[in-house]
């Protein structure tokens, strides 16, 4: 081990071959999946335009720092929490140029948030101030999600109040004569939230029925 080239080439061979085996090989084997046809519709299907825009907002705000978009089957309580009905598999993400799998759950998983929270109005108010929406609901104790009020415009009411204006009450109300309306970014983000649902089955995706004959 006295010579530099020996160390350099040895390290190169080790690092390059583990990369080839554990990163490049899986990508070549399984990283060129195609959409699967379920009842004549290709799944996963493309996102609507506004939701596509919402993906960019999701990335820009770093939502992935607290929220995952992957459901586990054989570990954790993901299914019991109604976060999904089956294991997430690679094919679920093929349309995503930038995937948001995430690695930390300070908040809940969002793979199926479009199912759990189908009401756009709820999302608009929740992004404005999560505590405003959750306070008073059953079992509410705390929420450490940041407020995204910077995605909303506070403006003076000119003429008729906008029909998009948030209904703010009590301590959250703004001064008389003003209203808070969501910006395009907020609406795009909500459209993205509503589009997040895995409502199809894939042949390779394990679900509880397939591995537990008792069910």
């Amino acid at each position, binding site marked *: *081990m*006295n010579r530099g080239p020996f160390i350099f080439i040895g390290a190169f061979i080790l690092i390059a071959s583990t990369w080839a085996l554990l990163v490049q090989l*899986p990508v070549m*084997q*399984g990283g060129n999946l195609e959409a699967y046809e379920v009842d*004549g519709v290709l799944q996963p299907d493309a996102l609507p335009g506004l939701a596509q825009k919402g993906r960019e907002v999701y990335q820009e705000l770093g939502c992935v720092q607290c929220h995952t978009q992957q459901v586990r*089957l*054989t570990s954790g309580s993901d299914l019991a929490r109604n976060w999904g009905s089956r*294991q997430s*598999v690679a094919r679920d993400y093929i349309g995503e140029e930038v995937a948001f799998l995430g690695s930390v759950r300070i908040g809940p998983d969002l793979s199926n948030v479009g199912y759990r929270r189908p009401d756009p109005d709820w999302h608009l108010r929740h992004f404005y101030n999560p505590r405003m929406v959750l306070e008073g609901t059953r079992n509410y104790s705390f929420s450490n999600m940041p407020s995204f009020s910077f995605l909303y415009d506070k403006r003076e009411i000119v003429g008729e109040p906008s029909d998009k204006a948030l209904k703010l009450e009590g301590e959250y109300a703004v001064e008389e004569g003003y209203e808070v309306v969501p910006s395009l970014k907020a609406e795009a983000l909500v459209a993205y939230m509503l589009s997040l649902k895995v409502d199809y089955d894939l042949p*390779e*995706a*394990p679900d509880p*029925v*397939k*591995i*537990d*004959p008792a069910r």
Partner: protein
Amino acid sequence: MDEHFEDSQKQAGVDEGQASDSSIVRAHAQIRREKVAGSPVAFFTALGLIVVLVFSWFYFRRYMADYDPNMYLHDRGDIALYKSYEPPVVDAGPVDPMVAGAKLYATNCAACHQPEGQGMAGMFPPLAGSEWVTEGDGSLIAKIVISGISGPITVMGESYNGMMPGLGAALSDADIAHVATYIRGSWGNDTPEVTEEQVAAIRSETAGRGVWTAAELRAQ
């Protein structure tokens, strides 16, 4: 903290070097050359390698899921259950030709003839109320679906001049029967169904021919 502070009064300064750089390189090179064992290190090196070897042997046998790129389960028990799972066979009963036909129509026909069979003025003839659809026992429409039709045609008094490709290669006899039945029974059309046997007979009769023209069909 005071004690530590006093210590630091004594200690701070410069950390003395206890070995010169070149002697560090030389002495250690000598250790490697002379292959001198270092007892606790030797023991733990061997221990570490053995533990890791045993562990990876166990893990390689147990959790590698046959290197299957489509396998998302790691546990052998789960994998066995997953592989032996067969979806319960649902006996759907006899297929309703109208339901099956509607689906086939939506994917194969509606782009031109429109979802309500109204066609597109001047371009694609309508199916709703068309005499080509309702006349006879349905063999006319079955022939068109199988082989296609091109050239001038008059439908409900309007003339069209287009081209429709045959779908015989893409659709099975049953499919053609279903879609023909659907067209003959929808949007105000009310004529009897077309059977699979009928389609099969027509297919064998007209095997090998190209697209029809309206005149050829009328001649029959």
